[in-house]
């Protein structure tokens, strides 16, 4: 293992972007994304990074710039949160349809209203269907590592899709963690210079972004669906190659003490670490509890997820967002994934940690207590917003 350095996760993320030799960075300030782009602007200002860095007048333009630069063959990066993501959401759909391998970090923050600068996943859930490959990072090292994996994967000629790395705002973005930085030499081998398949240049004129009449629109959407589904082997391959290089192996679905577990959490993002503490505490008491962490949200890892839940009696799915009027989005997905199985676990859905509300290991234990009792009593549709002060 290399040397670990204590650094703010946002700074580590920016350092990774620098190491990827990104050509164009375009962003607009929004809390809690700011530290990432502030550090990038410093790196460019000090000549430590050769990139076009500019602050645009809105997030809509931030991503629009990346679409233009990526289409011209430049490795491009942007970073945003919450309202900023909502503003650029129109362009997220277009970037993926144009098959442009842009990488974006989202410092996840609640979506207004009421306005809140604190962490949950409601921002990214608003663009759940935008066609980008979407990762959720669990800790600072994960964020740093995924930047390299994201570019390598996105730019693979058989993938060519944009990638979002979700990094919990404040709880990840603003904390100082030990990060093992990777030598530039290794990165250069892992991530070769970007060679676009098609780019805008007068020597080979191409038309990008034409209009699709009803006779072709369905086919373009099918092509996009096939592309993202087919990216799964490449995702596994990328994480395997990264693991071989660093010793840190990542998987679409990570499990923790799930062997023989009767009750298993399903969680995305930084709550994975807190929940693992709760699992340890419950295991010490002899309770049969485990944890599933979804690292890959899109494409949804159906097969891996089904495999991970084999033999589990009940799932406690913790959503960090609410689809108002239709419960938690992760729980909906989980239920859909398991519907066709003969033996499927019961699902109890908690929406927790909205807008920065702290969820401690004790809370996770309380959730398991509640879910186990409710399911025992025959509640098949368990759903609640946890920790509401009444």
């Amino acid at each position, binding site marked *: 293992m290399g040397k670990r350095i204590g650094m703010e996760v946002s700074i580590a993320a920016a350092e990774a972007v620098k190491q990827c030799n990104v*050509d*164009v960075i*375009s962003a607009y300030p929004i809390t809690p994304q700011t530290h990432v782009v502030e550090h990038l602007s410093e790196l460019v200002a000090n000549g430590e990074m*050769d*990139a*076009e860095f*500019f602050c*645009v*007048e*809105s997030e*809509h*333009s931030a991503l*629009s*710039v*990346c*679409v*233009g*630069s*990526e*289409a*011209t*063959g*430049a490795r*491009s990066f942007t970073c945003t949160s919450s309202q900023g993501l909502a503003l650029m959401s*129109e*362009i997220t759909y*277009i970037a993926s349809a*144009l098959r442009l391998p842009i990488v974006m970090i989202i410092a996840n923050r609640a979506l207004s209203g009421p306005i809140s600068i604190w962490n949950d996943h409601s921002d990214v859930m608003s663009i759940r269907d935008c066609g980008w490959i979407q990762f959720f990072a669990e800790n600072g090292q994960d964020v740093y590592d995924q930047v390299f994996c994201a570019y390598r994967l996105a730019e693979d000629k058989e993938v060519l899709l944009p990638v979002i790395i979700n990094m919990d705002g404040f709880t990840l973005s603003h904390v100082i963690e030990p990060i093992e930085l990777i030598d530039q030499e290794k990165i250069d081998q892992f991530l070769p*210079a970007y060679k676009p398949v098609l780019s*805008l*240049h*007068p020597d*080979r*004129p*191409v*038309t*990008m*972004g*034409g*209009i*699709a*009449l009803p006779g*072709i629109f369905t086919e*373009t959407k099918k092509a996009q669906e096939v592309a993202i589904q087919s990216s799964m082997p490449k995702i596994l391959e990328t994480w395997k190659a990264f693991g071989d290089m660093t010793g840190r192996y990542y998987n679409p679905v990570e499990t923790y003490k799930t062997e023989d577990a009767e009750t298993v959490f399903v969680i995305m993002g930084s709550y994975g670490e807190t929940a693992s503490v709760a699992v340890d505490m419950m295991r010490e008491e002899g309770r049969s509890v485990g944890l599933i962490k979804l690292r890959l949200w899109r494409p949804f890892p159906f097969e891996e997820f089904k495999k991970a839940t084999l033999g589990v009696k009940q799932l406690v799915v913790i959503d960090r967002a609410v689809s108002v009027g239709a419960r938690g989005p992760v729980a909906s997905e989980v239920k859909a994934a398991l519907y066709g199985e003969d033996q499927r676990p019961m699902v109890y859905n908690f929406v927790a940690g909205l807008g920065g509300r702290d969820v401690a290991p004790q809370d996770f234990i309380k959730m398991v207590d509640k879910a186990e009792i409710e399911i025992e009593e025959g509640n098949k549709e368990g759903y609640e917003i946890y920790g509401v002060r009444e």
Partner: protein
Amino acid sequence: MTENLNVYAVRTLTQKEYFSPGHRACQGCAEALAVRMVGKALGRNVIVASATGCMEVVSSPIPFTAWRVPWLHVAFENAAAVASGIESALKVLMRKGRVPSKKIVTIAMAGDGGTADIGLQALSGALERGHNFTYICTDNEAYMNTGIQRSSATPFGASTTTSPAGKVKMGQTTWKKNMPAIAAAHNIPYVATACPSYPIDLIQKVKKAANIEGPAYIHILSVCPTGWRSAPELSIKLGRLSVETGVFPLYEVENGKYHLNMDFPKLKPIKEYMKLQGRFRHLTDSMIEEIEKRVHKEYEELKEKAKKGV
């Protein structure tokens, strides 16, 4: 610039077409004509970012294209931002040696809605940042692609589908937004107005804009027979009348200095321009007079600016 105009000048233009025939624009569409001339002015070493709108729809039905130069359409309001990305990418890739160094002109193109309304913010940002690109607004004075809805560039009194002439309202009740002045207020090196009824003037201005270092803005009045309720064969004449009546003066703003390209000792009566268009059919003589007064006032103000050289 128009002093160079003579009847033979058009023969000196390239016969090459970069916006090729076969596109689906309406008969008499002066916007398509403007785009074609812009293409001729720029040649092949260009990358175009188009906004959503008539020109995007008529030129790019998958799998066909009318574009013989690299072209990208992303959305309605962001042509200037997309062009910023293209320009920056060219700059950094040439600096890093990944794209051979040569002059490639970056163009952003949008209609009046995509410029004066929904795209104004992105345009202002790109002009302020000083990207080396040329922004071309093809202004047909309403949202023609969606069915002739009013924009902030629709002239006073014009009847559109969302500013209809009714029993109590007489069409558009606001005055046309002065986009060239807004662009010029960003202190960019070059702003110009043009009209495809004056092809040589238009082409020279586009060439000039492309050769200037930094942002340039060209506002092209583009007659739309469908939306203006005018005869397709009158598009060129209407463009000329817009200039000759003072409705759409041809001028340049170079480093802040105004220059009127065509001055007329006496402007033609505005009625000659308006009577050919169904969108003004409902206007009474007194309303036309009121409009004419405002047009003359603005024309005089422009002349003053040009005289003072500010």
